[in-house]
């Protein structure tokens, strides 16, 4: 890093939208942050190409009115996240400026606010003691952040081993007070505060190892938990045309998932969608702790009308916060909606730089960028043997809803769960519109997960899940046959097969995200309903003609759906269950 005296400066020589060319008077680094001074306002920018002493920088703000000759100050560092207590419950822009402390109704360019509230005191408890040998990421102490243990760690940037010289005693401290002093092998001192900085594009690797994930992450969304399970430390993506339910799906997961911490990156999507989060999260309860959802959540908002150049920064900042909390031993869920907007931002810039374009004019290295990003998720064992995880789910917005496009294809290679939303299902209001045939969770094939599922739910669980999938597949085939040959040209069995799959579809797959009860189904209830469905599907019904099949199953579906809408094990639930039994008995008696 350059020192204050030797810091490089420069002058603007060219402006093409938010790509600015700077003539530098000294050395600078790729991805270094600089500030362009325009009429007394400092506009933040990042070096994205070096050509001799010319720096090509992308400005994170509008460049309107900017003139050649404006002066530029290089900072000597890359884009960094400021990490410390108080990140939770905050609403940041894509560069981690606190949106709530900004002035005025409109965003003013060049207005940068502090990520951390430096005036707030935290109640500190030491964990390490003098003489301990520590490395980056090790816990020195902790503060209570909304009921979550926020560990104060050896900064990730410190390399090598250190000996703790001293740690502050329990008490109230400001974030920038010295909490510990470390000594390196040459007895040089390093002081540690509650705050550290990390260059967001680099992965934090302060952990011992990263095994394959093996624990279910419950989301309360039936089509995920039962059929395509997500795991702690897993990766998944939700591609789908507009209006198919990506955002609703992600928001449902963010509200219901069994996570300690939720980081949401609203990347290039609608402002009103984050307003919904701002409005609802402080009111809604975390179903796992009873605290308010906002207390476990950080929102990074770079909505579609905010600077395009900060799209990329927004997802990297979010991932860095996730890594920070994972290192404290927490179960972190990170969501990004939509990763396609980030890819588009890369495309805009690559085109402006007149780089050789890849497919659909996206940059050539898009697949590598996507897979490196997804690789930052995962379940880890920390150096102290404790565990932590980042589960990452991104949405993808394929152009024209066509999944054969670069962002979808790149992501498919990187993510292990594929939740494909289908236009057809959305059109017929079969929500969530996840295509049950095309979607998958690779984790279901992991023996590690199968083992924990058998222990946590039941030994037959995975077999049941596979049977359900099979029923859906056969139902689809039967319906295709019926459509080709006609209702009465196929045997009644085809209709039976189809309607069995309709039961699974209507009762298990379809779930109303806006109904208080139906929105979240705990795993125990999912298990109960799966058994109910199996009972109906396995019952030896017989029909004389195909015309009897549909009305009968419709009645069954109606009862099962009423059960879904009723409080679990309530009177109403029991009543519907009794009604269902009677309907089932009708057919069974007739035999």
């Amino acid at each position, binding site marked *: 890093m350059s020192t204050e005296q030797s810091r490089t400066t420069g002058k603007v020589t*060219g*402006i*093409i939208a938010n790509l600015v*060319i700077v003539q530098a008077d000294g050395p600078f680094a790729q991805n270094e942050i600089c500030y362009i001074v325009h009429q007394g306002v400092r506009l933040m920018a990042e070096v994205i190409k070096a050509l001799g002493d010319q720096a090509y920088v992308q400005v994170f703000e*509008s460049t*309107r*009115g*900017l*003139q*050649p000759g404006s002066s530029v100050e290089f900072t000597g560092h890359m884009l960094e996240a400021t990490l410390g207590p108080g990140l939770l419950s905050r*609403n940041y822009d894509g560069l981690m400026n606190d*949106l709530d402390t900004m002035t005025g*109704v*409109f*965003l*003013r*360019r060049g207005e940068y606010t502090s990520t951390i509230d430096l005036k707030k005191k935290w109640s500190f408890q030491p964990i390490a003691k003098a003489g301990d040998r520590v490395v980056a990421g090790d816990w020195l102490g902790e503060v209570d952040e909304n009921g979550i243990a926020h560990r104060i760690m050896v900064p990730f940037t410190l390399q090598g081993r250190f000996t703790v010289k001293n740690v502050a005693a329990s008490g109230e401290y400001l974030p920038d007070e010295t909490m510990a002093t470390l000594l390196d092998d040459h007895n040089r001192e390093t002081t540690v505060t509650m705050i550290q900085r990390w260059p967001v594009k680099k992965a934090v690797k302060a952990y011992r190892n990263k095994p394959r994930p093996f624990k279910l992450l419950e989301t309360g969304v039936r089509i995920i938990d039962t059929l395509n399970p997500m795991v702690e430390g897993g990766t998944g993506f939700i591609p789908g*045309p*507009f*209006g198919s339910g990506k955002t609703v799906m992600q928001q449902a997961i963010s509200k219901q998932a069994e996570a300690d911490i939720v980081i949401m990156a609203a990347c*290039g999507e*609608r*402002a*009103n969608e984050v*307003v*919904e989060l*701002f409005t609802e999260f402080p009111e809604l309860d975390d179903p796992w702790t009873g605290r308010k959802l906002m207390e476990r959540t950080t929102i990074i*908002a770079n*909505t*579609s*009308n*905010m600077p*395009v150049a900060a799209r990329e920064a927004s997802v990297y900042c979010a991932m860095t916060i996730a890594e920070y909390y994972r290192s404290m031993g927490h179960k972190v869920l990170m969501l990004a909606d939509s990763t396609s*907007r980030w890819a*588009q*931002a890369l*495309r*805009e810039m690559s*085109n402006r730089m007149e780089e050789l*374009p890849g497919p*659909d*004019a996206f940059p050539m290295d898009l697949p590598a960028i996507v897979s490196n990003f997804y690789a930052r998720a995962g379940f880890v064992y920390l150096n102290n043997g404790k565990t932590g995880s980042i589960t990452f789910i991104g949405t993808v*917005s394929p152009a*024209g*809803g*066509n999944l054969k496009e670069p962002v979808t294809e790149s992501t498919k290679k990187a993510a292990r769960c594929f939740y494909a939303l289908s236009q057809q299902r959305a*059109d*017929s*209001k079969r929500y969530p519109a996840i295509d049950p045939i095309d979607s998958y969770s690779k984790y279901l094939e992991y023996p590690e997960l199968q083992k924990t599922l058998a222990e946590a739910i039941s030994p037959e669980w995975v077999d049941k899940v596979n049977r359900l999938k099979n029923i859906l597949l056969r139902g689809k085939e039967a319906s295709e046959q019926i*459509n080709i040959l006609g*209702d*009465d040209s196929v045997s009644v069995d085809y209709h039976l097969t189809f309607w069995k799959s309709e039961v699974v579809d209507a009762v298990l797959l379809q779930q109303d995200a806006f109904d208080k009860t139906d929105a979240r189904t705990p795993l125990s209830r999912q298990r109960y309903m799966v058994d109910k469905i199996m009972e109906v599907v396995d019952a030896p019904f017989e029909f004389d003609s195909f*015309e009897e099949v*549909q*009305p009968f199953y*419709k009645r069954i579906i*109606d009862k099962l759906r*009423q059960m879904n*809408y009723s409080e679990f094990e309530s009177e*109403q639930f029991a009543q519907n269950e009794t009604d269902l039994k009677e309907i089932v008995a009708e057919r069974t008696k007739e035999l």
Partner: protein
Amino acid sequence: METKALQRIYTKIGQITKATCTVKATGVGYEELALVDGRPAQVVKIVGDNVTLQIFSGTEGIRTNAEVIFSGKPPTLKVGDELAGRFFNAYGEPIDGGPQVEGEEREIGGPSVNPVRRKQPSELIATGIAGIDLNNTLVTGQKIPFFADPDQPFNQVMAMVALRAEADKIILGGMGLSNDDYLFFKDIFENAGALHRIISFVNTTEDPPVERLLVPDMALTAAEYFAVDKNEKVLVLLTDMTLYADALSIVSNRMDQIPSKDSMPGSLYSDLAKLYEKAVQFEEGGSITIIAVTTLSGGDITHAIPDNTGYITEGQLFLRRDTEIGKVVVDPFRSLSRLKQLVIGKKTRADHPQVMNAAVRLYADAANARTKLENGFDLTEYDQRTLEFAKEYSDRLLAIDVNIGTTDMLDTTWELFAKNFAPEEVAVKREFVEKYWK
């Protein structure tokens, strides 16, 4: 734009392309407005002392020694209450023979609202059209386009919605509007006695297409004045956004940018989002609602323009001619209002969400039955009933000539359910069936 004293004048044009010219000049700001040989132009690129200007009306006949006058500022609009009732061109100059508007001069395309300063929209907009109010309820602060083929009566429907919407101001941004359509809007607003609430920025088919690019920002700058400074409820009508996007592609092609899908610029999403995201509900009561038109080609919504639009807007209203009833309907499958959740069942009767979804499911069953029929198969008795239901549903609720209250819409739907189905076929929550089944 008039020439004023102290303006910097240059005459050394180095390069002229179809849409741009490059002049040697200094002290010029990015996006600054200029006059090239009297034609309005804007700075789109600066490299050293080479300043590239996009000339809105094209470069035909521009001479290499033409006069380039820089204005020292980006495009602006003078805002004030006097805007009301006036008609302007894309530069904000009066075209109604009236005087110049005096007022505070504001840059158009200004900064975005801090998302934490927005309020969650919650006020229902009643239009009387059941295809909208029942199935795709609109909310103040929403942004939503009509998706329609060019032969659909989208401008008529939009004008009708605007007049019924109880807005304090209606701001029309017309892009590539035919003269007939321009006069249509003028007449319908005048006949409704609403002219004093209307402000229009119009680029007609007779004007250069690239000028259109200024129209939405002009309209939205005026909208922000009334919504922020005056706390008014403003409705902005943008028609036709497909022609706006076409102008974007003309410019980017002429500037040799690498086109992405359907020869649209790679930045189409961001370009459109910057406009549509001006829709907002403010804490203090002011709001901007945007209703737009995106014309389709042969109903194709996968084309880059409707596709990017759909990813940005809060739903879309899809107009289609229903040949069976011979009327234009709001298609329930392809239409969507994403903000309806905020009001239905809350500002309307509690059964609204369930009734709406059940009716659409049954309508989907009818569509399947119709496919069967087309493929020459026999229909079951249930299929027959769905077809009966669908026809009446289409005629009495989906057609755009319907004008009733939301409660009537719900009652009508229940009536159609009871007429054609048994309660379990409708699959609505028990409590509602008990209350409303007729």
